[in-house]
């Protein structure tokens, strides 16, 4: 039985109490994307300043949620700020792989090939969120801001000048 210490690592509580990149950007020119967890009412708003080449120049997070969703958003903002589109995409894939590998195990399909991890991506502090996978109902809390970020990047890419 996983204990609370697996979930509430000190670094998670630190990001919850002292969220990084908390606030808003003027939108427009920044892009504003909302994410909701309809089950629990948590909501996150991600403000993105994305360059034409897809680089995340700046990011801000607002909204409300539990320690897991808020700390995940805070760590995400630190990890993606200033990174290229490819790096951010790889990070999103790596984070979701960390979250969903265990989801497969819970389904009893441990033998199956796990979702392709991103061996070259360093998750750093984000690895503290690995404990969340032992609490399946909280995985959606951890992934809320990441899905919202991905949605914002998709929208930015779709509207970016071509060529």
């Amino acid at each position, binding site marked *: *039985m996983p*204990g*609370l210490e697996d*979930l*509430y690592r000190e670094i998670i*509580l630190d990001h*919850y*109490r002292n969220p990084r990149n908390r606030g808003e950007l003027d939108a427009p020119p920044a892009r504003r994307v909302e994410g909701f967890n309809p*089950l*629990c*009412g*948590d*909501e996150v708003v991600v403000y993105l300043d994305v360059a034409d080449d897809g680089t995340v120049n700046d990011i801000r997070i607002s909204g*409300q*949620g*539990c*320690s*897991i969703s*808020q700390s995940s958003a805070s760590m995400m903002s630190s990890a993606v700020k200033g990174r290229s589109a490819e790096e951010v995409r790889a990070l999103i894939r790596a984070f979701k792989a960390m979250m969903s590998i265990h989801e497969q195990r819970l389904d009893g399909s441990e033998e199956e090939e796990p979702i392709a991890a991103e061996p070259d991506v360093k998750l750093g502090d984000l690895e503290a969120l690995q404990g969340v996978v032992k*609490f399946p109902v*909280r995985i959606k*809390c951890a992934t809320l801001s990441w899905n919202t970020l991905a949605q914002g990047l998709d929208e930015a890419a779709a509207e970016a000048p071509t060529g």
Partner: protein
Amino acid sequence: MAVTQLDVARLKKDFPIFERVVNGHRLVYLDSASSSQKPRAVLDAMDHLYETSYANTHRGVYVLGQESTALYEGARERVRQFINAPSSREVLFSKNVTEAINLVAYSWGRANLREGDAVLLTEMEHHANLVPWLVLKEQLGIELRFLPISEDYQLDLSELDRLIDGVKLVGVVGISNVLGTLNPVRHLADAAHAAGALLLVDGAQYAPHVATDVQALGCDFFGFTGHKLLGPTGIGVLWGREELLDAMPAFLTGGEMIRDVRLDGWTPNELPWKFEAGTQPIAEAVGLAAAIDYLEGVGMEAVREHEVSLTAYALRALTERHGDKLNIFGPSEPAARGGVISFAYEGVHPHDVSQVLDEAGVCVRAGHHCAKPLMRRLGVGATARASLYIYNDEADVDALNEALDEADRLFAF
């Protein structure tokens, strides 16, 4: 000294689930507003039907079919007595309250509401008594009005005369599933009828906790659900006045609810079967009847008395221990409320409260409780909610209180 006369220790033994150990602790179940636990008598009644008398109802001429039908219709009669309905023809089985209210909105609403007609609801309704009417707003162009909430989390009736003028139906939750507020149903019924409107009561949190007399309440429709009343999931009840139900068109259509089908048309069955399409949840109806037997064995007056006493104890004990860190969203007067205690804890999100409590075997709900407009009105995204029933006692409240200390310690800045 116990604050209540109910022998909770003895009652708990009737519920097999309380033998369960959670995270090394005894089970402290404080989420009955979401769904209640089941006494052995309910489980046995359902098993007994399946083991001895099960067949489809209203079909077979053989012994099993007769017995099954008698048990199913006996359950309807048991419900009729429980809510003091004038006739069992007025007692319709549904899946739950959500389906019961959808039935009223879909059938009565479409037959009786036109563009511009108004329906009066309240700001504390569950989504089940909001969305069916929002659908009619979209599809028919009806107007929705809302009774606001006062400072002490009661309905603010100061503008009732203006708001109720010209409405066709008033819909109100009997006891709020978030605030615990016990609403003045009789008063609203009289006001609705004076205004030429009907009154619909969402009784999901009411019927399991307060002796229910639909005639004394003066309402026109009353819905409740089995699984919050010690019964199984999948069975609910809509009671409606016979002349209303008689005039309403069928809701779900198909098997069982018909008298005749031709290739060019069909004729509905009479009440109550007109509103019961397809094979019904037979064992669940029998389980619901057993739950009613169990509850009435305890006595609904004793149930209510116990919950008022225990709620008073909980409000006092929680406030004494946690002071200003704890913000309770609900009436402060125990007699004006049910045993639903929603709260915010300073610095700890409701999900985290619930997670930390789970570690101590304490089950509370965290979330918006299917009342998002109310959450917005309260200015929160979610609350933690502890809810009480007959199998809870002061020790359960104390366990909650102690576990909240741990949440406070873990998340302290």
